[in-house]
């Protein structure tokens, strides 16, 4: 899949609260479909649909155990989606560190004005 399309799939997959909850659950370790369905008031087929979306986006994969086929998280995909936020954060961190410096100057000026 092309990088752009893959990111589309990742963001579409993450746009749903149930799927985000599944991701959060899998972040603590792999789990079977039944275990994943437990916290939700949802049938196993409904959960399976969500799992398919996550799988297509490459966010999760299936284990080999024949019976349980546990799902597990593919952390690399999530990291890609996070990169933009990371870059945006870096830009604003730079802004706000400059703002810190400015605020220190302003505080000093205020103190001087008051002591006069």
């Amino acid at each position, binding site marked *: 899949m092309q990088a752009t399309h893959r*990111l589309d799939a990742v963001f579409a997959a993450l746009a749903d609260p149930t799927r985000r909850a599944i991701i959060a659950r899998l972040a603590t370790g792999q789990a079977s479909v039944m275990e994943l369905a437990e916290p939700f008031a949802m049938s196993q087929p409904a959960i399976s649909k969500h799992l398919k979306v996550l799988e297509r986006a490459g966010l999760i994969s299936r284990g080999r155990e024949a019976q349980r086929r546990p799902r597990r998280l593919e952390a690399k995909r999530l990291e*890609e989606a996070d990169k933009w*936020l990371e*870059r945006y954060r870096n830009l604003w961190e*730079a802004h*706000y*560190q400059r*703002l810190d*410096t400015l*605020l220190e100057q302003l505080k000093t000026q205020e103190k001087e004005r008051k002591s006069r």
Partner: protein
Amino acid sequence: MKRALTITKRGDRDLVMTREFDAPRKLVYDAHTKPDLVRQWLLGPPGWTMPVCDMDVRVGGTYRWVWRKETGGSEMGMGGVYREVKAPERLVSTERFDEAWYPGESLNTLVLIEQGGRTTLTQTMRYESPAAREAVIKSGMEKGVEASYDRLAELLAASAASQR
């Protein structure tokens, strides 16, 4: 001291930024509403300057910001209208880039809460639709910003050193 900046997605069309400052909120508010202060810190990526910083901070008033790259001279401009002005705690404005790559504009809400002389800043960007927010996020990943991590790291190191 380096303070943590958090940026998170909230709901299906908001991005939320929070950061703490070691200053009373009146000063933080001033730094967001007085042009001569704004242009001292809101400089964009390293290597850019802010030649235009016009702000008419009152309900219905407009603002206009332009950044220019020192080498090559490419420009990036944006602006909007102030919707709510409540010194020193709340500022709501619209934001639209000249060359918008996402539909519509965003509605930005700045909230400042002071406790014990320190201020917690929360900046919420609400996009027109979930698709618009995803477009913002994706465009950033595909086009990238011109600043590389290396240059940013240099700037951060320099700014950390100047605070010592």
